[in-house]
């Protein structure tokens, strides 16, 4: 059975990891494991921006990837960026092995709003499904409720469902089953 590893970077919310484990077991039919936590690499921190650079965390996650891992999703509590943009919710290797996602901007309190745990975990699911979808070759979907729809703001995240649309679901399944027949 293929394995997806959820890799805590720093100390992300544990319940979030459990929810994702459950969700991906259902979604992919794979063995989903929570890897040993990894410290945030120092090189990723940008003192001027007070943020972490996504690509460095992605690289560190790939390096620390267990041998039996087919995919790895690094989950980090800190806020991520790429040099070109003010922030990113996450970043993935398209058709690659690894993705990274940040929990920072998925919390209501980031926007100075009252804490809402249910909403937060729903967002975590959406963002994780989105990034993992990219690793299976899915690009942004024009169906705005699809979890693969482009989201550049928390409003856009909330506007979509924690589901792949019909065509993305088919593409994902094709990609998953082509991996199964590879070996």
């Amino acid at each position, binding site marked *: 059975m293929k394995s997806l590893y959820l890799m805590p970077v720093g100390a992300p919310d544990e319940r979030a990891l459990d929810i994702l484990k459950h969700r991906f077991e259902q979604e992919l039919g794979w063995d989903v494991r929570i890897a040993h936590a990894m410290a945030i690499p120092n090189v990723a921190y940008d003192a001027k*921006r007070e943020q972490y*650079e*996504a*690509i*460095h965390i992605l690289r560190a996650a790939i390096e620390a990837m267990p041998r039996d891992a087919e995919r790895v999703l690094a989950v980090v509590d800190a806020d991520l*960026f*790429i*040099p*070109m*943009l*003010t*922030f*990113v919710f996450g*970043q*993935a*290797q*398209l058709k690659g092995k690894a993705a990274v996602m940040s929990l920072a901007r998925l919390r209501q309190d980031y926007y100075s709003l009252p804490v809402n745990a249910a909403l937060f975990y729903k967002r975590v699911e959406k963002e994780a499904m989105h990034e993992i979808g*990219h690793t299976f070759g899915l*690009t*942004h979907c*024009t169906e705005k409720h699809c979890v693969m729809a*482009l989201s*550049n*703001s928390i409003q856009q995240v909330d506007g979509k469902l924690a589901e792949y649309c019909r065509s993305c679901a088919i593409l994902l399944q094709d990609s998953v089953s082509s991996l199964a027949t590879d070996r």
Partner: protein
Amino acid sequence: MNTQWEILVVDDEEVNRESMAAWLREDGYFVDSAASGREALEKTQAKEYAIYFVDLKMPKGIDGIETMMEIKKIYPDASVVIITAYATVDTAISAMKEGAIEYIVKPCNPQEISLLVGRIIKVKNLERENTMLRKKLLGQYQFQDIISKNAKMMEIFQLVKEISSMRSTVLIQGESGTGKELVARAIHYSGDRADKPFIAVSCSALAETLLESELFGHEKGTFTGAISQKPGKFEMADGGTILLDEIGDISPKLQMDLLRVLQEKKIYRVGGSEEITLDVRVVAATHVNLEDAVRQGRFREDLFYRLNVINIHIPPLRERMEDIPLLARIFVERLSHELGKPITGISEGGLKKMMDYGWPGNVRELENAVERAMVTCREHVLTENDFQFLNGAKKDAQEWEIPQSMTLEELERQAIVTTLRRCNGNIKETALKLGMDRSTLYDRIKKFNIPR
């Protein structure tokens, strides 16, 4: 969705360009990256990108603005987005002045970039659709290499399709430059002889004896210089098509030889006695009115009927004015590539100028006129100024009319007298202007008794 569009990210810092490329790939774009201006230009030379994200500051070699300017030399319409870490008014102004579509300061809000990319791609999609529709439209007006939307020409296209696989002789009549050879080629290449040879012979270019051996070939030793046996154009065209251009100019003897070929489908090489059986489709073309030539006894009537089994008369350009804008646009497109000049079209004024002109030299003259205008043009569009030379030409063409009942000899005499006067009696200059040898000119002066 977006896979057909390619984007190039140019940044000397690996992390910057790779993270940006990855971010764009998630959106479905094919993304290339380049670590320097030089590498960007190499990649641009190999293919065109929909958007170029170029970092302003690159330490080695050429900077972002220079890179953009070089890209624009290759693709004047390229959409270049200049990226900078520090906004200064000066660089922003110079980037925009040099043609950047946008100037952005990083880090940038992801929504802004998404909107910008979406906006540029939308325009690119429209441009692509426009080009596709124009091509489709053009395809409607194109038959082989001939382009027209004129009703008479469309009838010709139809006729050509119908007769292309027959063996019947075709006579194509039309003024010089109307495209008689193109029609002959279209007949050949749309029929079942398309994979066999198409041989064109200009009957006016050669003297009678030369033409004879050119057409029918000759045996070794037939005449001085015939050092070996040589097959003629008819033999070369066996199985295919031969175009006899300017058929109206051939001598009575050749007319008879040709008649025999058409009747018997056999030829004899000059100086030979062996008969050679051939399967050649004959297409003849002429700019003179063959019926008139027959009436005046200059062309054999029986040959005329043999040739005129299927008759195609190509209208002169002045009778199909609607084709002028279409043809002119196609010539501009083709020549802009050939001449390496980024000229995109013709202004309203330029077109009007072309529509007002009579085009005695037909499509060939139109093509030459467009080329001349493009060579001197300094803008991206041809305007009426670029076609000023058509003024004088039109006047000349209108004034010039052959006086009635004037012999060719008299015409020649007149031409020599006038040119001599214009050149103040200078023989060398006169000969040059008339395109004849000095000795020939002396001959004529003597023959016509022209005072000097």
